[in-house]
């Protein structure tokens, strides 16, 4: 790694000698930048989907979590969560224009999906 650019190190480290893992910022290494985040709500029962149009024109890196509304218990997406014999499955995916969360829900309650889309492409 060349000795140019900007480096910021963690407390207690010397910026002149700190390794990458001891740095909190290095201008040669990309940071994931959040382009958009928000909450989608699926109020239906059974199979369905909700969509956010991001309009980036490419497939971004992303993260998503979900909760059964008002439960205040958030899961990373993709899981099948059983609630007293009832279940909810959330599988999110992205295209170059949208984030789509496919949902199976038989909980009788709405499901909230929290997404974070990054400026940075997913590949």
């Amino acid at each position, binding site marked *: 790694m060349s000795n140019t*650019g*900007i480096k910021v190190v963690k407390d207690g480290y010397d910026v002149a000698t700190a390794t990458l893992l001891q740095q909190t*910022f290095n*201008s*040669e*290494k*990309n*940071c*994931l*930048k*959040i*382009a958009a985040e928000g*909450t989608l709500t699926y109020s239906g029962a059974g199979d369905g989907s909700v969509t956010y149009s991001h309009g980036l024109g490419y497939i971004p890196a992303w*993260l998503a*979590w979900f909760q059964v509304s008002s439960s*205040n*218990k*958030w*899961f*990373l*997406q*993709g*899981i*099948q*969560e059983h609630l007293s014999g009832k279940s909810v499955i959330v599988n999110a995916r992205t295209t170059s224009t949208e984030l789509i969360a496919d949902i199976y829900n038989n909980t009788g309650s709405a499901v909230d999906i*929290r997404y*974070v889309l990054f*400026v*940075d*492409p997913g590949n």
Partner: protein
Amino acid sequence: MGNYGIKVSKPGYDVKTSSPQELVFSSKYQTLHVHSQGSGIVYDSTGRTVTVAHGLGYIPKFLVHTQVDSSLPVIGSTNYYYIVPATTTRGGIEPGQYDLDVRAWADSTNLYIKYGDSFGYKYYYTGNVNNNYGYEGVSYITGTIWNGYFSGTGAFYKSAVRFQDITISQGATIYKAILGYYLGSKVGSSDIKVSSYGIDEDNTADFGGAPWGRPLTTATANDAASGNFSTGDTWERGVTSQLQEIINRGGWSSGNPVGFIQLDNGTNNSSSNYIIDSNSSDAFYGNSLTYLKVLMVDLLANYKYTIFLDEMTG
């Protein structure tokens, strides 16, 4: 993008003309801030749910990765880290596969990482093979398991089940082994009481002929299918010591079949109380719903977590 704030471009790009994707940092865009990171090991014996206190007072965004022990090659690989949730897809686990069921969630006080009750177990099925099942009340019949008491014949029923291709080395230590029956029929409200034995043979033959005269393991266990069970439930019980005794046989060879026999142990005979487990199949994988699952080690997995300062819905 407005020409304000701080921008840092990737090497080789002009910061004045770079697109957002060509910047490594821009004060216009929020980034995730790490609150804490950590790692640990989860064991079956110490509980399968890890609780990490974050003390934030609100629900944070988070990520979790899990590794399985190298002796548990989930999905054919070893020592890989998986992003949690990692789950076996609907319909069950393929023969010879290990269950993979890890989920994580956060509330305003803790991050939780939960390894499912069957995580790390390797599954063996009877397959839809009639001669891997046998029962006898008044006559010997294959293709079904029947235990308990049936007033229609006035008989107590005993059963046997056989699993093929058990890939466990001779003498290997088995941490846990569990036999699971899908209750295709459950009649009566009393417990169905059985004594479970292994068939003490190196390479037990199929049940084309009644297996009741075969040698039984010294190891045995008395179990009961609860009277509260219903049709469609799964009844699990431990057969660790029975399987260990078979695997310890000097003539045992990995890949051989194993068998288990369940004799009645005093089921209430004031009326019919019985279970039937047919070799009906799993709709997705086509396996029998009768299974033997084996956990070889206590250690389940290494895990790593990242808790962000950023609020889930902030």
